[in-house]
């Protein structure tokens, strides 16, 4: 089955060895998205809400490129560096997902790839 790869030009990649989104069949898998400016620097250090908003804004760019929306998300995995980020993530995600209710796995990890990032989110979507 032919795969399609999505790499929005205005979403930062630290290295050109992966894609932000891959569509295989009707399953769209998104890479872990960190809160990064276009130049790769971390957005709003120590501001979990600003970071969460940036993460979802960048995920949306990849979804837009693939012609998908947050309504098709079935699974969300969030990597957070401290527990206190979780309620903020839930609040921001509630605005994003509206009536959708995806499965969710939060993981509290020592750190994520981008130093200073408090959160990283990956998604799986099943498209119509």
């Amino acid at each position, binding site marked *: 089955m032919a795969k399609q790869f999505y790499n929005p030009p205005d979403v930062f990649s630290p290295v050109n060895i992966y894609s932000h989104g891959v569509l295989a069949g*009707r399953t769209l898998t998104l890479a872990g998205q960190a809160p990064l400016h276009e130049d790769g620097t971390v957005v709003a250090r120590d501001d979990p809400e600003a970071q969460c908003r940036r993460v979802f804004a960048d995920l949306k760019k990849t979804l837009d490129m693939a012609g998908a929306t947050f309504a098709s998300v*079935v*699974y969300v995995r969030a990597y957070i560096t401290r*527990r206190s980020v979780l309620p903020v993530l839930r609040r921001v*995600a*509630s605005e994003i997902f*509206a009536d959708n209710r995806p*499965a969710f*796995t939060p993981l509290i*990890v020592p750190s994520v790839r981008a130093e200073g990032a408090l959160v990283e989110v990956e998604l799986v979507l099943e498209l119509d």
Partner: protein
Amino acid sequence: MAKQFLNPAVLGAAGAPFSQGVRSGDTIWVSAQAGQDAQGSVVGANDPMAQCRAIFERVGAVLAAGGAAPSDVVIVRGFLKRRQDIQATWQVRKEFFGDHRPASTTFMVSDVEPEGALMSFEVVATLDEPSER
């Protein structure tokens, strides 16, 4: 694809904006489950066996809500705070899965949600016989 949100009452609320599990087509995604009761309280403080049993009871309930059984699980992922608890999880998983042997990944994390949880587990299952639900 039509989705079914799986939120068995016995698990208590998943917390907005998420579900305890989702069935999409013939794939069932079970959200990471911690050893909690229906009120959200962690059971078996510092007891990995008790927590793990509670976890797989919850996983089983979500699978059942999606029309799946433990034998439909294709991968299990375990997230543990302490390496020393692995043996207990193996025993509980053996009880839960019997002779079924799904793929498996276990790794250590710096903490587990909610406070007091020693571990959480997620699974993905696929149904052998496609159905129309």
